[in-house]
Structures are given as C-alpha cells and as structure tokens.
C-alpha cells in the first residue's frame, strides 16, 4: 500500500512537473495526460471508483485531447527559439513556493497529523454506482440540472467564441477586403434597417 502510494505520487508529480516545464507543447500535453492518469489511480486507491473512471473519461479522454487540438490549431507545437518562461518568472516561482510552504505548514501543524482516528481509513464497502445514481436523482437533483444547463451553455458559448466572425462590418487588416466583397448583398438589409430606425425616430 505504501509502495503503491509512493509510486503513484512520484508518477503524478514528475509528470506534472514535466507538463509544466517541457519546451515541446505536444510532449506537455502527453505528460498532462499521464498526470491525470496518476490522479485517477489515486481515486481508485481511495475507493472512489466512479470518480476515478469519470476522471479517466473526462480528463484523459476529453480535456487532454482538446488541449492537443488547441496546440495544433494555434501552431504552438513547433518549437520556437524564444524563451518559454515569461518575463516575470521569478515572481511566479516565488509565489508558488510560498503557497506550498504555507499549505504544508498548515497541514503539518493541524490536528490532522496528531489525531489517531485520521491515520487510517475507516473500513467500509465501496459506494456502488447504484448508490451514486440514487443520490444524484434525489438529494443532488438540483445541482445535476444546473450542471446540465451549464454544460449546454458552455458548449454553445465555446462554439460561438471560436466561430469565425465573418459578416461583421468594420474589419481592418488583410481580411477586410475579403469581407467587403460580401457587403453588396448585405447593404439591402443595412439600408432597410436604417430606414426602419429613421421611422422609429420620427
């Protein structure tokens, strides 16, 4: 048990450090998937099988692939000669070390380390999917509905944000010429809209 914990912790932390420090972004995404897999192993070790497999499905299956797509779409997979760290990297590292120091001190000085009840897991059967579904449909039904609404709104919002904004006026730069060729069919709408606006004003 101790050895499994040590192996999983080392795998997760090393791949997280690699995901944050490698130069090639595609390697970063692969290391990130490895870190997510280590976290899923933690969940399985702690007896939360449903959360562990949800982690595998959502994070390794969806989020990591989404990040790979974003890396390829923004062409940042090709290595650049520029430095990978921003100008204020020293401050960032200092803040991260400070945060970890505060957290570790809080954990070590709390009663969690001295309370003998918290030193070992209470033995109990693992929660079944049946139990989780029952709770989701009874006690947590309102959060479930809100999450459904949030996911729908996020999916529509992501599509709208990432959509090409063709057809909008007042474009500058090289794409303006391309859109100006589309303006004559739209001018009817525009003139009728301004006509209506004048009618409303009068």
């Amino acid at each position, binding site marked *: 048990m101790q050895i499994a914990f040590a192996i999983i912790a080392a795998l997760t932390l090393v791949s997280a450090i690699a995901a944050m420090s490698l130069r090639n972004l595609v390697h970063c995404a692969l290391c990130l998937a490895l870190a997510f897999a280590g976290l899923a192993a933690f969940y399985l070790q702690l*007896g939360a099988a449903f959360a562990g497999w949800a982690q595998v499905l959502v994070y390794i299956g969806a989020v990591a692939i989404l990040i790979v797509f974003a890396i390829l779409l923004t062409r*940042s997979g090709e290595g650049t000669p520029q430095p990978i760290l921003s100008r204020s990297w020293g401050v960032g590292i200092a803040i991260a070390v400070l945060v970890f120091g505060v957290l570790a001190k809080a954990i070590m000085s709390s009663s969690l380390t001295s309370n003998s009840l918290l030193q070992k897991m209470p033995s109990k059967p693992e929660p079944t999917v049946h139990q989780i579904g029952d709770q989701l449909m009874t006690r947590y039904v309102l959060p479930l509905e809100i999450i459904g609404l949030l996911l729908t709104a996020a999916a529509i919002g992501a599509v709208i944000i990432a959509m090409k904004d063709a057809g909008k006026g007042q474009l500058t730069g090289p794409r303006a010429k391309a859109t100006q060729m589309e303006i004559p069919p739209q001018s009817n709408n525009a003139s009728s809209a301004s006509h209506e606006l004048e009618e409303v004003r009068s």
Partner: protein
Amino acid sequence: MIPLHDYLIVSALLFAIGLAGALTRRNAILVLVGIELMLNAANLNFIAFWRYSPDPEALTGIMFVIFSIAVAAAEAAVGLALIIAVYRHYKTVNLDQVDSLKG
C-alpha cells in the same frame, strides 16, 4: 496504512506546480493546463477527506468531485475557444505579446 496528511501534501505539491506553471509560462495553453492541475489538486483533497471522514456513507466528497469535473470540462472548452479566438486575432498565443484589450 497511509495517513491522511500524505495525500494532502501530495495535493499541495500538485497545486504549487500548477500555480508555478500558470504564473510563469508564456504560452496561454500551458497557463490553462496549470489551472487544470490546480483544479485536480482540489479534487484529490475532496476525495481524501471524504475517504477519511467518519461518515463516508453520505457520498458528499464524491458528489462534489463529479460536479467539479463537469465544471472543469466546461471551463476547458470555453478557455480553449477563447485562446483560439485570441490566436486568430493576434496570430500568437504568447501572453507577453497579448497585452491590450483594444481590438
């Protein structure tokens, strides 16, 4: 048996790694990756506290993690769409160059 604070220390380390990455990398995608790592560290805390709690039958920690995973998926989708929109406008995702709100 592994004591609870070992999990908490691993989670705090993961949070610090994510924070360092989010604050120091130049690429906007890597900043989003750092935020995801921080969210995952919080999830690990939830699961560990749930497992060591005196009443694990309530399933509170698992429920919180499931909802948190759903919110994180929505956040990743919208965040990456924003990064693609920024790339289309500036032709770069380098955060040192994307420094003006004016279009």
